[in-house]
């Protein structure tokens, strides 16, 4: 077992012996499931209306259910994922195990990678459980799987970005609550940048500001568009956040 694997295993163990994952996971799944159910019910109501008016109805579940669901999940993840990441470094600093970790014969990049991977795996398993929704809908209806899959790709990339921001926030402080709020704040700012961008209009600055926000990149994926530009955005911002976390952890030694 390599040191990174050891860290992943240890972090997963810590996640699953504490109630955090269970509480956060249930809340996430409950809200996602409830929203999914509501969107399906709305779609059904619309179908009945159309049937009465036209005698037949072609329902587009992709538009009526999945796009709405993915858009809502964006917000749930913004609230939920910082709760998962807040303990990663803050707890180590509070409990004085930070010094132990940094005097172990491993690089800081291995520590950051291990911590990020562990929480990413937790997130993937939670997201995987929401996959039951499209699977169940597929039993009773017809829809296009392609945008659903790209939507899930979008959620995975978005989640990874949120988690990396959370890792950074957790490295900045030894208070977990502060870490959670800092990452929620940072993510909201990133979110609102897209609003600022459209306010600035179709200028170079406006486009640059919108590009910084994850909104349009995520929207493309939800609509079934896989654009290299969007993938580059997610991968590079993830790398930047992890790099910054590395620097912050490194600089924490100097104090």
């Amino acid at each position: 077992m390599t040191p990174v694997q050891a860290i992943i295993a240890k972090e997963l163990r810590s996640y699953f012996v504490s109630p955090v994952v269970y509480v956060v996971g249930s809340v996430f799944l409950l809200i996602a499931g409830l929203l999914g159910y509501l969107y399906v019910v709305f779609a059904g109501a619309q179908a009945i209306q159309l049937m009465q008016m036209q005698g037949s109805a072609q329902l587009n579940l992709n538009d009526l259910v999945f796009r709405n669901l993915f858009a809502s999940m964006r917000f749930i993840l913004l609230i939920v994922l910082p709760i998962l990441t807040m303990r990663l470094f803050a707890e180590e600093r509070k409990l004085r195990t930070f010094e132990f970790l940094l005097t172990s014969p491993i690089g800081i990049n291995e520590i950051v990678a291990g911590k990020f991977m562990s929480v990413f795996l937790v997130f993937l398993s939670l997201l995987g459980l929401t996959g039951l929704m499209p699977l169940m809908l597929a039993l009773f209806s017809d829809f296009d799987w392609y945008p659903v899959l790209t939507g899930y790709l979008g959620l995975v990339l978005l989640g990874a970005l949120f988690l990396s921001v959370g890792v950074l926030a957790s490295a900045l402080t030894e208070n977990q609550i502060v870490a959670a709020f800092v990452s929620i704040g940072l993510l909201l700012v990133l979110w609102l940048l897209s609003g600022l961008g459209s306010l600035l209009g179709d200028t170079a600055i406006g486009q640059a500001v919108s590009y910084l926000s994850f909104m349009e990149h995520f929207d493309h994926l939800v609509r079934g568009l896989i654009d290299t530009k969007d993938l580059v955005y997610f991968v590079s911002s993830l790398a930047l956040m992890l790099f910054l976390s590395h620097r912050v952890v490194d600089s924490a030694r100097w104090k």
Partner: protein
Amino acid sequence: MIEVQQITKRYGQHTALDRISFSVAKGEVLAFLGPNGAGKTTTMRILTCFMPATEGTARVAGFDCAEQPLEVKRRIGYLPETPPVYQELTVTEYLQFVGRLRGLSGKVLTASIHREVERLGLGTVQRRLIGNLSRGYRQRVGLAQALLHDPPILILDEPTVGLDPKQIIEIRELIKNLAGSHSVILSTHILPEATAVCQRVVIISGGRIVAEDTPDQLSARLRQSEKISLILKAPAADTLSRLKSVQGVQNVFSGGDSGAFLLECELGRDVREEVARVAVTNGWGLLELKAISMTLEDVFLQLTRHEEGLTPDAVSASVESAGQPV
């Protein structure tokens, strides 16, 4: 094994360490003695590559702490002030994690864990969550962690804190047994501990080394003379010279108007009877006469109280002033 040269550490305006130099040979046990905030922990953090020094170089096992930290870390077992344990893991799980971080695996890992569990008496608690263990057990788990990969160098920050007397003796025995094959630096503010387990003592105060010697030699310096404290109600002008002329008295220091005197006498010679007689016959009003026993504790207190301008050479000077009635 450990070579520290002119290390300075500043936190902003505050200087935590001021040009510290010392070295530890292979198999030697060195004690760092000093009050809280003297710089013990800072020195250890620099040696373990947790933090870099502002100036100066530290070399551990031939590797520079600033340039090859990974090589240094591989060769060090470090027990910080607070045992670095994860409460949600069991003792065995924790040691497995620690071993894997240090590149142990398979049978070697299992054997190492078994060895440390035996050595530190953790057999009965190895399946319990560390969060449910007492302070003493956590401290032992912390020690097991430091020893797990059998490092040639051990850095122990107050290893016996939180242990009961029996455990303290056991841990001291353990450290003594490690000497010879391991180089050990341990910090403590308990003097008997330093004398009990260490070959050399470094007394550190205010970020500076104020004395460095073997425990024996430090006490030998103290026993260069016997000291007597004398308080007189009405000392005369010739008191000082009269006292000096008492046979066996080598030196007399006056405490000024307070009527206090400090007498330094030949080793193994009790001059109290004679001094008392002289005082009474001259009518100086003898108020107090007592022998001062100098312990390492006194030197330590004295050395660390006078932070400024003390070098190892100044030890004997401050020992003298240590006897001055306050």
